[in-house]
C-alpha cells in the first residue's frame, strides 16, 4: 500500500484539524488546568467527538461505530497532538476498544461498544504497576475459587482512571512476575467494592490515576478473552495504544516545530531575523528531517495494524521509539530556539514539552522499544 494518505483520510485530517482548532486549542487545556477541573476534560466536547463519529472510530458498524481503522484513529490522535486536547479518545476509543473488539465475547461487545461510540462509557486499561513499563512483570493477583476471583494489588498511571466507568485490568492468575503466561484481563465496573481510585495530577495536565485493588471480587463473566492466556491480547492492545501515542507524539512534535519555525521567521536580534543564522537553520533542517523520517514509520505501523493486527509488533515499536525521539528533539529545540519567552508559563510551547514527556514514557520509552526490536530479531 502506498505510504500516502488516501483522499478520504486527508479529508478526515482536515476536518479533525479545523474542529480541534475551533473547539479545543491549547487555551482549552490551559483553562481546564487553571480551573482545576475535577474531570480534567470537557464532557460536552467528548459528546461532540461522538457526534463526529470519532468516539467510535474503531467500533465496528455492527455495534454502531464508524468501523474504520487504525490509520484513521492515528490521524485523530495526531491532530490531538497539535492541540494537546485532553479527552478519553486514547484510553477509551483506541485502547479499550482494541481489547474489547478483539477479545470480548458478544455479550461484552454489545454491552460496551455502542456506549463507547455514543460517549456514554469511558473505559481504560490498567496495566502498569511500577515506574517503568514492563507489562510481563504484572504482579497484581487474581486468586480464583470456583467461578469467583479476588483481585489484590495496585496499578499506577491508569489513563483517565479517575473518570473511567470500566477498568480493563491486567492481572496475574498464574505464573510469576516476568512470565508472559498466566496473565488474565478482567473488565470491572469502576464502582465495584474494594476498588480505590486516586487521581494523579500530572506534569502535562492530562488525566491519570492510581488504583488500589483490595480484594476486589470478580467472576468469570468479567474475564476478557482467555484465563491465563491474556498476554497476546494485552500485548496487541498495548500496541494499538503505542501507535496511537506515537501519532500524538508526531503531532505534538510537528506543532512544536511549526511554532518554532514561525518564530525563527519573526524574531529579530542583532538587526536580523534569527532564522537567518546558519546555526539555527541547520538545527531546524535536521529536526525537519528527523520528523519526516519518523512520519514514514508511523504510516507503515498504522497500515500494518489495519492489515494484520497480530503482525505489527516490530513496526509499532519502531514507530513508538522514533516518535518519542523526534518529538523530544522537537520540543527541546523548540524551548531553546524560543529563548527566554519559551520558559514562561504564559507562552504555549511549554505545554508541548510536558505532554511529550508523558507520551514518550507511557507504554514503553525508546529504550524499551529498542530492546523489543532486538528481541523480535533474536539478538
Amino acid at each position, binding site marked *: 500500500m502506498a505510504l500516502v494518505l488516501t483522499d478520504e483520510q486527508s479529508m478526515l485530517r482536515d476536518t479533525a484539524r479545523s474542529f480541534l482548532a475551533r473547539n479545543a486549542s491549547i487555551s482549552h487545556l490551559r483553562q481546564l488546568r487553571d480551573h482545576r477541573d475535577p474531570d480534567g476534560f470537557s464532557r460536552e466536547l467528548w459528546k461532540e467527538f461522538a457526534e463526529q463519529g470519532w468516539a467510535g472510530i474503531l467500533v465496528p458498524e455492527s455495534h454502531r461505530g464508524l468501523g474504520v481503522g487504525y490509520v484513521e484513529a492515528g490521524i485523530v490522535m495526531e491532530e490531538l497532538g497539535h492541540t494537546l486536547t485532553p479527552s478519553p479518545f486514547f484510553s477509551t476509543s483506541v485502547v479499550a476498544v482494541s481489547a474489547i473488539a478483539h477479545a470480548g465475547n458478544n455479550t461484552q461487545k454489545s454491552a460496551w461498544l455502542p456506549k463507547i461510540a455514543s460517549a456514554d462509557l469511558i473505559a481504560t486499561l490498567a496495566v502498569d504497576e511500577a515506574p517503568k513499563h514492563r507489562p510481563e512483570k504484572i504482579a497484581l493477583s487474581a486468586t480464583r475459587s470456583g467461578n469467583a476471583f479476588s483481585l489484590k494489588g495496585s496499578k499506577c498511571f491508569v489513563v483517565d482512571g479517575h473518570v473511567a466507568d470500566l477498568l480493563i485490568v491486567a492481572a496475574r492468575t498464574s505464573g510469576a512476575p516476568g512470565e508472559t503466561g498466566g496473565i488474565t484481563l478482567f473488565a470491572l465496573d469502576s464502582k465495584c467494592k474494594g476498588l480505590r481510585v486516586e487521581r494523579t495530577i500530572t506534569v502535562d495536565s492530562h488525566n491519570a490515576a492510581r488504583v488500589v485493588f483490595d480484594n476486589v471480587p470478580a467472576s468469570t463473566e468479567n474475564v476478557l478473552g482467555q484465563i491465563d492466556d491474556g498476554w497476546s491480547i494485552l500485548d496487541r492492545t498495548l500496541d494499538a495504544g503505542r501507535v496511537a501515542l506515537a501519532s500524538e507524539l508526531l503531532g505534538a512534535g510537528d506543532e512544536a516545530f511549526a511554532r518554532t519555525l514561525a518564530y525563527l521567521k519573526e524574531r529579530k536580534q542583532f538587526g536580523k531575523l534569527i*532564522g537567518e543564522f546558519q546555526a539555527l537553520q541547520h538545527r531546524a533542517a535536521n529536526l*525537519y528531517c528527523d520528523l*519526516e523520517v519518523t512520519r514514514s514509520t508511523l504510516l*507503515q505501523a498504522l497500515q500494518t495494524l489495519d492489515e494484520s493486527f497480530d503482525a505489527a509488533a516490530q513496526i509499532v515499536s519502531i514507530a513508538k521509539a522514533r516518535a518519542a525521539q523526534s518529538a523530544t528533539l522537537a520540543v527541546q529545540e523548540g524551548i531553546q530556539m524560543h529563548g527566554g519567552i519559551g520558559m514562561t508559563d504564559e507562552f504555549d510551547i511549554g505545554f508541548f514539552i510536558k505532554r511529550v514527556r508523558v507520551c514518550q514514557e507511557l507504554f514503553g520509552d*525508546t*529504550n524499551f522499544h529498542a*530492546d523489543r*526490536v*532486538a528481541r523480535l530479531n533474536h539478538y
Partner: protein
Amino acid sequence: MADLESVRKETRAWLEENCPPEMCTPLRGEEDVCWGGRKWKFSSDAQRVWLERMAARGWTVPEWPREYGGGGLSREEAKVLREEMRKLGCRSPLDSFGIWMLGPALLRYGNADQKGEHLPKIARGEIRWCQGYSEPGSGSDLASLQTRAEDKGDHFLVNGSKIWTSYANKADWIFCLVRTDPKVPKHQGISFLLFDMESPGVSTAPITLISGSSPFCQTFFEDVLVPKANLVGEMNKGWEVAKLLLAHERDTIGGTGLSTGETRPLRQIAAEAIGLENGVLADTNLRLQIALFEIDAKAFRLTNDRVSDLMKQGKANPAVSSLLKYYGTELNKRRQELIMSAGGLDALEWEGESSHEGRAARAWLRSKGNSIEGGTSEVQLNVIAKRLLNLPVE
C-alpha cells in the same frame, strides 16, 4: 495490469534463458563490477556475454528511447525488470557515470547529433565517462570553478584542473564544467563540455585516501583543444545542466546509503563477532545502539518508499533529495562506526586474509567521505532550510 504481468513473465523467461549462471552470483567485490569502455578487460567470458545480450535488448538502459540504444520501457516495466533481476540475483550488466549522470543530462539538453553520437556508446558500454566538476579551489562552492575554456573561433582551449574525478585514469571521455565567461556572476559564466581524455594536454594522477587506494584522481588540462560541437546546451548556461546532474548524484549516494564493505545486517555481524548470552547480544550497550540504528535504518528505507510514492502522485518537493542524501549518508557513517565497534580489535586489521585486507576498517574510513561528496551534509542542510523550510536567506 494484466499487461504488466505478461511483461513480467516474458522478462523472467528471457533473463533465465540469457543470464549466464556466473552472472547470477553476488558480487565478490569491486573487481566484479563491469564498467565498460575502450580499455575495458572483461573479467570473464560470462561478463562479456551478459553485457552484449543485455545491450542488444536495450536493457543496460531500459528506460532510454530505443533509437539511442535503450529498451524503451515505461517506468513500471523498468521496475518489473529490476525486480525480476533482483529475484534471480542477476548482476548489473554495466555500471557507468554515462548511464547514471551524463545520459539523463544529454536526453534533456543534448542536440540530436550529441545524443546520436554518445548515447548508444554509453548503452553498449563502449565509452566510459568521468565527471569533471570539483576543483582544488571549488568544493562546496562549486560554481566558483576556475577551469577556463577560451573561445578560439572554431574550438575551445581548455586550461585548469579538476579533482575527485572518479576513474579519470580509466575513463575515455569526460563531461566537464568550464568557465566560459569570467566577467559575469559566477553561475552565469559556466558551460558544459564533453571531450576525449586522449586529447593532447590531458593528464591524471590518482589520489590515495585515508582508506587506501581509491578511484579518485586529480585531472589536469593544459591547452586542450575541444571542438565547438562538444558544447552541451547553450553557452554560459552550463549550470542548469550541472544542477540536473547533481540531483542524480545526490539520489545515487543518498538512496543506496553508499553501502561499501559489509552487506550483512549489523545484528548478524555483531552476533558473529561477539556472540549471544541467553539469547541476547553479549555486549548489552552495543546491543541497544545496534537496535537504535536498525530502527533508524528501517525508518529511512520506509522514507525512501514514501518519497517515491509521493513523487508518483506529484506531491514531493524536489529538494527532498537533500533530505535523503543528508540522512542516508549520516546513517551509513553510524553503521560503519557500529561495525567497527562490533569487530573490536579484529576490525583494526589493515592487511591480511582473515580481515579481507582490512575490509571493515577501510569501509569505515571511506564512509567519512559520504557526507562530503555529492554536496556536504552542511550544504544539504542549507538547501533544506531554504527550499523546504523557507527560512530567510542571510
